[in-house]
């Protein structure tokens, strides 16, 4: 489903050039659960952002199915994200001024889904992660675990082909972290493709494939025996 060919990402600031990604080649098949690991600054998040099209590679090809995403313009990429991707972040990134239900619904609005359809999807997504009772609350009224589950509901409400999770358990205690991992695992079991950045070896073990990165390169790609 996904193919990265010779992807490079360089940042140039004043006199310093930093290479965040160097010659990344990666293939991810539909239905896979991939964990990306590596020390801080190795390029994990850059890789995830590139996969999520919120960061553009400096060079290389990014094929999603048979589309080359590098060739798309801003508006086409925005449409692509709305239709295809779901994001989960370490710091949840819920919008403070919107209720949980509204946060979950927001992505559907950008897809211009019809109103009745949206309501049903939002209800289902919140139900799926167990935050329905918090629908009318604002993010700051929820615990960290609840906020992250709401963020997952937002990520899955549009039934995306790909879910990108950037240290989704990083800000959570063990119990809440486990709950989030359980949700991701079951989503994957139902067929969702998931790519997750994590520092936790145990959470990485849940994924079917683990990619290790160092200094902007993939140094190992290990498939877990099932």
């Amino acid at each position, binding site marked *: 489903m996904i193919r990265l060919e010779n992807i490079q990402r360089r940042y140039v600031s004043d006199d310093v050039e930093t290479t965040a990604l160097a010659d990344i080649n990666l293939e991810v098949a539909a239905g896979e659960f991939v964990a990306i690991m590596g020390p801080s600054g190795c390029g994990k998040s850059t890789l995830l*952002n590139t996969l999520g099209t919120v*960061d553009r590679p400096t060079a290389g090809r990014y094929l999603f199915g048979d589309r080359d995403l590098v060739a798309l313009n801003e*508006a086409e990429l*925005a449409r692509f994200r709305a239709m295809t991707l779901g*994001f989960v972040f370490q710091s949840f*990134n819920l*919008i403070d001024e*919107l209720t949980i239900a*509204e946060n979950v619904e927001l992505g559907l609005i950008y897809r211009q889904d019809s109103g009745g359809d949206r309501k049903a999807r939002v209800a289902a997504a919140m139900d799926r992660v167990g935050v329905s009772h918090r629908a009318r609350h604002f993010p700051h009224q929820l615990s960290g675990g609840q906020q992250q589950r709401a963020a997952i509901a937002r990520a899955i409400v549009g039934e995306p082909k790909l879910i990108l999770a*950037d240290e989704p358990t990083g800000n959570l205690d063990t119990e809440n972290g486990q709950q989030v991992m359980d949700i991701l695992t079951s989503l994957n079991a139902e067929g969702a493709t998931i790519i997750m950045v994590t520092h936790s070896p145990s959470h990485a073990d849940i994924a079917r494939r683990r990619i290790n990165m160092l200094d902007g390169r993939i140094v190992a790609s290990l498939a877990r025996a099932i």
Partner: protein
Amino acid sequence: MNRFAFLTLYRSLTRHRLYAALNIGGLAIGIAVFLVLGLYVRFETSYETWLPRHNQVYLVQTVWNMPDSPFNGAYPNTMGGLLEEMQADFPGLSGTRINNVGATVLRGGIGTAEDLAWVDSQFFDLFDLTMLQGDGARALAAPSNVLIDANIAHKYFGTTDPVGQTLTLNIGAGTAPYRVAGVFAPLPRNTDLKFTMLTRIPKGAPQGNEDWWYRWGSTSVNTYLRFPDPAAAKAFAARMPAFVVRHGTADLGANADKTMQLTLLPLADHHLTPAGREMASVRQTIVTLGIVGVLTLLIAIVNYVNLATARAGLRAREVAMRKVLGASRGTLVRQFAGEAILTTALAALLALALAELGLPLVNAAAGLTLSIPYALVVPALVVLAIVVGMGAGLYPAVLLSRFPAAAVLASARSPGGGRTGARLREMLVVFQFTLATAFIIGTFVLVAQTRHLRQADLGFARDGLIVIKSGAGLSEGQQSTMRDAIGGLPMIRSVAMADTAAGGFGNNNANNIEIPGRPGEGPSLREIVVGRNFFTTYGARVVAGRLFDDRHGTDDSNGTKGTENRAIVINRTAVPMLGFRSAQDAVGKTVGKGRPRTIIGVVDDMRFFSPHVPMDATYYTYWSRYLGAPVITVRYAGPMDAAMDAVRATWRKIAPEVPFDAAPADQDLAKLFAADDHAANLFTIGSVLAVLIGCVGLWGLASFNTSRRVKEIGIRKALGASSRDIVRLLVGQFLRPVLMANVIAWPLAWVAMRHWLAGFSDRIALSPLYFVAATLLALGIAVVTVLAQSLRASRATPAWALHHE
């Protein structure tokens, strides 16, 4: 904007109440100032535009161009018989004269003065007044008809139908009954036309005016002409020089068309066109206040942009998340621009309320009767909300939508628009404070100048004087009886008659006085004809020589011919004009060849006229007996009311049929600079609010910057900085743009105020003190504005600050 965008805005405003209050409040004040000053400008520029055919009507101006004359310039008056001579030369010319002769309405032997104007029968072709009763044009066909406005109708006839009733009017010399033939709606406030009654102007020269009605060079009526289009008016104006030569050469001499020109002024331009040497103060005031309104709005918009971009940083995460969820840049720009428009609309609504609440105060301060025309203002505010919203919201919108989502989401810190953003915000603060400081300087200078006018030495004691303007109606016998009777009242110190008085009432006469031994006609000097006790009543200061004295028989001009020698007193300004080195040097000298005048004394300049008009070189002649149309000045002691009552009672006893029209001189003089006072008040209100908005902006910016720097402050403190160091750092950072603003504001204000002061003949010096004081004030305001927050930030414990995100 989708529903969620509205919700986000609503919740963001209610959650961040202080921010909302600063942002919307500042913008509302800016819009309110703009609105009120806009209404003022609209009022002042709307004079006569209420007339249906105003753009076809032109006022004939007499333009004088004589060597050294104090009266050079364009005047709105013409010779009485000009229209008749024009219509004889240009058949079919449509026009009317308006001669504000005034009338005394006589009822039961008591006279009441009313504003009556003589007009021609074609008057209604040009001035299509709204008739409430009767046919105006037809009414003017008969010379014994009078048209009155609704107020006069109510005053004299109450609820009775006025049409067909009779009013006994004394117009000029004769008393006669007039039949009320119609009632017109009272004139609106935005007009320079001053009449409440109209009758037809007599054919030929009116009685008593025979000498000068057809004399070229006299100016006694307003003449209006109507042309179908500007081209026709232009073509007509081009034929004027030949017309002047044809008819005026006999009176004006050779080169009549050089000495005097006739020009056409569109009716609607009349109000803002200064007469003669008057400085263009009305127009200047309007332009100034219009600029103040626009700049205040601009300051408020800058405020909005500043606060919105500063806050943009705090919304970066929201923006990034929206992008991740699939919002395009266009969607985001639309959302934020929409927010700006909505916010502006809220501010506009609040501004309307503020303007409605503030208008009575503004009206009182500026002598206005403005009201808000909602039918016009509401659509204008909608447009303003969209334009200002787009203007103010576009930059923050573009800035916000440009935040790179990945970087924002990866970073713990919120971007604040980077170094460019910070620099831009600092530049905006510089801009705001430049205007604010310039406004403060302007306010100081304006207030000082208007104070100066109120307290300036006029060359005479302005307190304790009553000026009676209706002396022209007195007969020769009544004049002397009145003078003696009023002079005999216990609280009256002295009484004087003259053809001119403080406040600018009376005649304007000027004569050329040849200087012996020099070629040419000599300079033109104002002549003031005075009776007994004139100088002592005013308390004039003698500079050299002596004043008129009955013991010197030659002082009295009564019985002398113009070609005989007369004694004159001149003012200080006339001394160099007549070629003398000093006042002493002038005394005893005789000037004027064919009409010799011997200078017996020099007095200090006495300023009777508007402070916008230069002081005239003046000479005084003394007439012990009858003066043609005297203005009477009375000096009293004790309370004004008692003196006024006693004088009025005496007047009613001696001349009940002549209206008593009198006022304290200081009141009349105050009217000469009332417009300046009012303008100064409006300017001050505008400036104070502009400075306030600037402060709101600075406060908001300081608040955001300080909160963004909490962690930095923690680090600095952990490294050993004291609270004082932190305060100095933060306050110093905000003083830099304020100081820069002052550097720019000084030359701006200097140029503007020098220009404004040039409009006054009697003016203060542009002292550097005003500038220094304004700078200190601006700095003081800035320090107070940011100090509280800096103090709070400086007191935070480093441990807390270091964990602050």
